[in-house]
């Protein structure tokens, strides 16, 4: 079937099978490999993207379900060669080690700040229930999100 959707502000028309996952469309067909797949069972959040502005696990979404929607991946955040403030904050606060979970963490954080521009540490930790990191122990991720939120408020 042919579907049309917007990916990182570009209109895409693509032929997909009904059982193709959004994560596979992004990674394998559109070569947007910043969206990571780790557990592939809806647990870890590495595959998080924004669908019509709301964070979603792209391994638990059919590409067909996203037809007509606007999808933003980690590749869609930086503008004019400059990192998005949330990406910059992860960089500066050392919010990653291996980096595998990072695209999902950043997308989730961007969604959080959209609904809650000034989240407390407790609110950030509660929000990250859908994102698992095996390296950092979360301390610097939480710090990064606080810093990213502050940067976005003053932007």
């Amino acid at each position, binding site marked *: 079937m042919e579907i049309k959707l917007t990916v990182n502000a570009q209109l895409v028309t693509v032929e997909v099978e*009904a*059982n193709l996952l959004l994560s596979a469309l992004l990674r394998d067909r559109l070569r947007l490999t910043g969206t990571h797949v780790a557990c592939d*069972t*809806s*647990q870890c959040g590495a595959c998080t993207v924004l669908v019509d502005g709301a964070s979603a696990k792209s391994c638990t*979404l059919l590409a*067909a379900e996203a037809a007509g929607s606007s999808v933003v991946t980690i590749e869609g955040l930086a503008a004019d060669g400059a990192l998005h403030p949330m990406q910059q904050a992860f960089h500066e606060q050392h919010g990653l080690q291996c980096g595998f979970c990072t695209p999902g963490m950043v997308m*989730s954080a961007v969604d959080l700040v959209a609904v809650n521009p000034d989240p407390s540490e407790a609110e950030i930790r509660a929000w990250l*229930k*859908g994102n698992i990191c095996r390296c950092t122990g979360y301390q610097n991720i939480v710090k990064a999100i606080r810093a990213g939120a502050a940067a976005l408020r003053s932007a």
Partner: protein
Amino acid sequence: MYSFAYYRPASLGEARALLGQIEEASLLAGGQTLIPTLKQRLASPDAVIDLKGIGALAAIERKGEALVIGALARHAAVAASPVVREAIPALAALADGIGDPQVRNRGTLGGSIANNDPAADYPAALLGLGATVTTCERSIPADNFFTGLFATDLEPDEIVTAVSFPIPRRAAYVKFPNPASRFAIVGVFVAETAAGVRVAVTGAAPCVFRLPPAEAALARAFAPESLDGLSIAADGLNSDIHAVAAYRAHLVAVMARRAVRQALA
């Protein structure tokens, strides 16, 4: 995933016509249960019928003394809805405690109750508030809707369209969540309603159930102390790697007292 055809009907009539034509079709709402099931090849429908094109099914409105929530209302929408927070704050809080943000952004009320996972949260709210499920065919009281492990009174091709929740005088839901999934190891919904006190328990047994001794005690006096000495038999309760039956039985009484305290707060 096995292959299947995908349809996104724009109306309930169109969805029902498709259900009539296709031998084995699965309804798709938020997909947070169905897609993992398809990925594990635990189901192999000929077609998936995505209900998300039927926008009217996502409405949330107050109708007199009831709160009517469409089957396609997402958990995040219920949690954030000013109408829900004002009419039944316990229901908004329950929705806000389901899974994680990504799951709440996709998962729906209709999908949750049609699935009737023994550890799901919404079934406790429906049973605890004495809600009524509306389908494209009929109305089903919550007391008759949940019939067993992953089983409901729904016919194979019956579509849930909405749930009507009578607005209680007060209510609260407290769960002991599985720390990984947030599903309820035990969750208790307590409500003081126009039709009396209702107490519903999820997570503990193969299917959500009411707790008549607790209801009777709370009808005499709606206070946590009324439940002192409440003892729940472990027979027939779930035992798994997360909690044995005797522990779940203990948790039911603890969560029930906490829920009453929270309802009074």
